């Protein structure tokens, strides 16, 4: 089954000063399925997530992507390998139009320092951006500055920006945060449809939301791996129940 594993962490830990945010988590992520990282607030989800995509460097332990040790690589290199993250808070390029947001992300894989050609001459990138906008349902918002889009649209655009890099592994940090139930359904549908072609790792604290769509779940609690397995196992797991009951309200 090792061939199926795209990303693996071995005993990764992260300390911020004296605070241990994460205590030696070892886990595997399988290719082309959705794996969700869940846990109550303060469980270390975001820290773990940021270690997976190179935003943070682990204090100890290793991260392996496709069998290669990628621990401590700068974040932009992760993107070039095909590991792309999207953010918990909405972060787009607000003054650029929706199309340029996506086109720029697609361009980053091809060229950064080309100063002399017009950017319009890179036609394939323009087509990629149009295809991605179509995919995330923003084709009719093509020329609108991203900062003027509705909240749900901005979240969809964010996923579009991530998709433009044609990632093998897409990491999404609470992609439905602050959304209406209607918007949440739409985005979850989009995410499920994307999983057919690529690996997705979701971070979420609303367990209900991800139980139905994930093939595997990783439960963190107090910076440690509490449980790992299929949704049914997690649903029946007594420790997980206790932790979540202790944090009622989600």
């Amino acid at each position, binding site marked *: 089954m090792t061939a199926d594993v795209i990303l693996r962490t071995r005993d990764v830990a992260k300390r911020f000063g004296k605070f241990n945010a994460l205590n030696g988590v070892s886990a595997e992520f399988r290719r082309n399925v959705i794996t969700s990282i869940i846990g109550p607030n303060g469980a270390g989800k975001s820290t773990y997530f940021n270690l997976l*995509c190179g*935003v943070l460097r682990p204090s100890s332990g290793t991260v392996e992507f496709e069998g290669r040790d990628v621990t401590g690589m*700068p*974040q*932009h290199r992760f*993107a*070039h390998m095909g590991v*792309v*993250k*999207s*953010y918990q808070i909405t*972060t*787009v*390029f*607000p*003054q*650029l*139009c929706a199309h*340029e947001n996506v*086109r*720029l*992300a697609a*361009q*980053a*894989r*091809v*060229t*950064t*320092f*080309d*100063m*002399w*050609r*017009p*950017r*319009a001459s*890179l036609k394939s990138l323009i087509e990629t951006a149009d295809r991605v906008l179509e995919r995330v349902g923003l084709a009719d918002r093509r*020329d*609108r*500055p*991203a*900062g*003027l889009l509705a909240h749900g649209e901005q979240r969809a655009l964010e996923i579009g*920006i*991530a998709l*433009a*890099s044609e990632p093998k592994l897409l990491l999404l940090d609470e992609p439905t945060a602050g959304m209406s139930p209607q918007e949440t359904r739409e985005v979850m549908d989009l995410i499920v449809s994307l999983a057919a072609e690529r690996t997705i790792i979701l971070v979420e604290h609303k367990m209900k939301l991800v139980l139905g769509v994930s093939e595997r779940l990783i439960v963190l609690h107090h910076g440690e791996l509490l449980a790992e397995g299929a949704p049914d196992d997690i649903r029946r797991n007594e420790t997980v129940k206790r932790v979540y009951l202790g944090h009622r309200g989600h």
Partner: protein
Amino acid sequence: MTVDNVVALRPSEPARGWLSLARRRRAWLASLLLILFPLIVPFKALAAQILVYGLYALGLNLLFGYLGLLSFGHAALFGVGAYFCGIAVATFGLPWWAGIGLGIFGGTLAAALIGALAIRTRGIYFAMVTLALAQCVYYLFYEEAGWTGGESGLTGVDVKTIDLFGVSFNFVDPLVHYYVICAFVVAALFALSRILASPFGAVIEGVRENEARARASGIDVSRVRLVTFIVSGAFCGLAGALLSLNLSIVSIETLNYETSGLAVMMCLLGGMGTFFGPFVGAALFLLLENIVSLYTVHWQLIVGAAFVACVLFFPRGVWGTLMQGLEK
């Protein structure tokens, strides 16, 4: 420092019709304005100074306005360009075009050295480190009086005629003088327009808009900063070279921190991140300085008050506010 810390820029609707056409033809329009400029302004020598300082502010604008990185050390790039050109022409008797080439090289070199050291820091620390390094350059040039003339400056950067494409221009004639300098500034405008429209231009916008997002998309933000700093240095180096040819001397004040502040002020006055803003800022500042100083020795007081008023009432600069008004 991000742009938003200085001026809160709200996203605006895309321009339509003739304004969008004007934006695509910005280099042509800006050049046209500069070509017509001496016909409106009676002081030809001042007009040439405005060109030179406008180009210098344009160099800073690429870094400050377009990338969102504030440097307080651009005098070093400008001044080294001026001294390289001046020494080439005055000391080694090289032709004017070699002086300009060396000026661009000097600005680029200074930018590469200062940039490589300063780029590790962020925000206000970046501004401070560039300021400190530029002061080092100032003292280096001040001490090396054998080369630079030290306190009294470098004299004898005399170019009487400019030979271009078989035609000999009388560089002493004020109007010819202006248009020779203008030719280089126009070339710089077209180069800048091209860079802004290129894939790298898109990267610059992206880094300014959202650094974290740019990094997550695979952009090496530190390299982008350094490269932009160096390109900015090339423009400032050219401006410095033109300054030395324009005045026939290079004074040590060119390297002073006040000169760094001047470029920041001109950018803010005209409108940072706008294509033509730096020239408007340079024109406003130098015209004010020249006119007010005719009447009072306390001209800095008046110019300072005018600057404060501009920043308060035209938060996007005079040109930036004008452009914004046209879009509505």
